[in-house]
């Protein structure tokens, strides 16, 4: 996965033409990677979900811990009444994470380095928001919510409705693609640097020397740009999805989304904070 292919988009392997050329489906690198990610997810689900027992073994304890973490995250962010979205959020998290990390293999292209994949996810989020809005307020009530608080603010509301999936898409796509391009620039720089070092050798030997600087040094950067960035963006994307859906589907009764486990903590937080210095200071 070099920078050129990242910036030019995915390579098209072959093209399926249907209905006398009316519909064309391109099978690209991203499509292949997506199918591989799907396959990995299915295999993981089958392997980890097999042979569940009342008394959890090592593997089952780990999986239960992860699933409980996911449900806790969804409950604290969206409230208890939105817990039905936990499987969707988990799917989003897992496919985004695997899709980013599959680029590390250098065989498959990162699925998240393609704009269309993430645009699809963001549009699903928008669709869920609209569904929840219509379900809560009724169709005309949902339409009326765009004219709030005053009527002439409607265009701004509509623009923000379009900007929401766009900003989600470009954030994730830009992070992954930018990291990949930066990594390829680093690789090219290190290759030319090691070529420069071997310049004193005869040309035939220098051409055969391996690019020694490419060993080890890019690993530190790859840790940040590929691993950390992919993890972070997967988390941020699903967190934003949760926040938007929770906005569209607030708790039915005020005080209904009580965090059962966190009553003590919220009480501690709500106490007045003793301010050391009253005036805000610039740093």
């Amino acid at each position: 996965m070099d920078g050129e292919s990242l910036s030019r988009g995915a390579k098209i392997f072959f093209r399926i033409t249907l209905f006398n050329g009316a519909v064309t489906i391109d099978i690209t690198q991203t499509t292949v990677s997506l199918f591989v990610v799907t396959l990995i997810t299915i295999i993981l689900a089958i392997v980890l979900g097999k042979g569940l027992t009342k008394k959890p073994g090592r593997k089952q304890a780990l999986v239960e811990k992860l699933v409980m973490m996911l449900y806790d995250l969804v409950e604290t962010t969206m409230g208890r009444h939105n817990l039905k979205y936990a499987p969707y959020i988990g799917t989003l998290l897992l496919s985004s994470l695997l899709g980013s990390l599959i680029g590390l293999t250098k065989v498959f292209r990162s699925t998240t380095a393609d704009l269309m994949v993430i645009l699809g996810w963001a549009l699903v989020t928008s669709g869920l928001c609209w569904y929840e809005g219509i379900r809560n307020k009724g169709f005309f009530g949902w339409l009326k919510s765009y004219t709030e608080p005053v009527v002439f603010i409607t265009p701004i509301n509509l623009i923000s409705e379009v900007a929401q999936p766009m900003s989600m898409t470009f954030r994730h796509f830009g992070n992954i693609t930018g990291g990949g391009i930066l990594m390829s620039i680093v690789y090219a720089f290190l290759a030319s640097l090691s070529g420069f070092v071997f310049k004193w050798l005869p040309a035939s030997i220098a051409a055969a020397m391996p690019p020694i600087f490419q060993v080890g040094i890019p690993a530190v950067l790859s840790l940040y740009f590929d691993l950390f960035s992919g993890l972070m963006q997967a988390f941020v994307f699903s967190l934003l999805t949760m926040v938007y859906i929770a906005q569209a589907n607030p708790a039915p009764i005020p005080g209904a989304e009580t965090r059962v486990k966190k009553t003590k903590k919220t009480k501690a937080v709500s106490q007045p904070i003793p301010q050391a210095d009253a005036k805000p200071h610039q740093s």
Partner: protein
Amino acid sequence: MDMPTAITLLAKALGAALVMAIGSIAPALGEGNAVCKALEGIARQPEASSDLRSTMILGCAITESTGIYSLLIAMLILFAL
């Protein structure tokens, strides 16, 4: 390489460099400020650190998006223009 091509290339490189340089100032400052305030909050109230951390990450991601937009513009200038 003839002269017009060279000038176009120069303009592209300069434009992309300027977009990235200017466009990354504000998100960096904003993110630094956000992390600074979150750290102050954590130092004052360590028991609220998990809530603060997730909110800070979300805020950082939203702040970062302006920088990401400038990166996209730089990429468009370099590869699509």
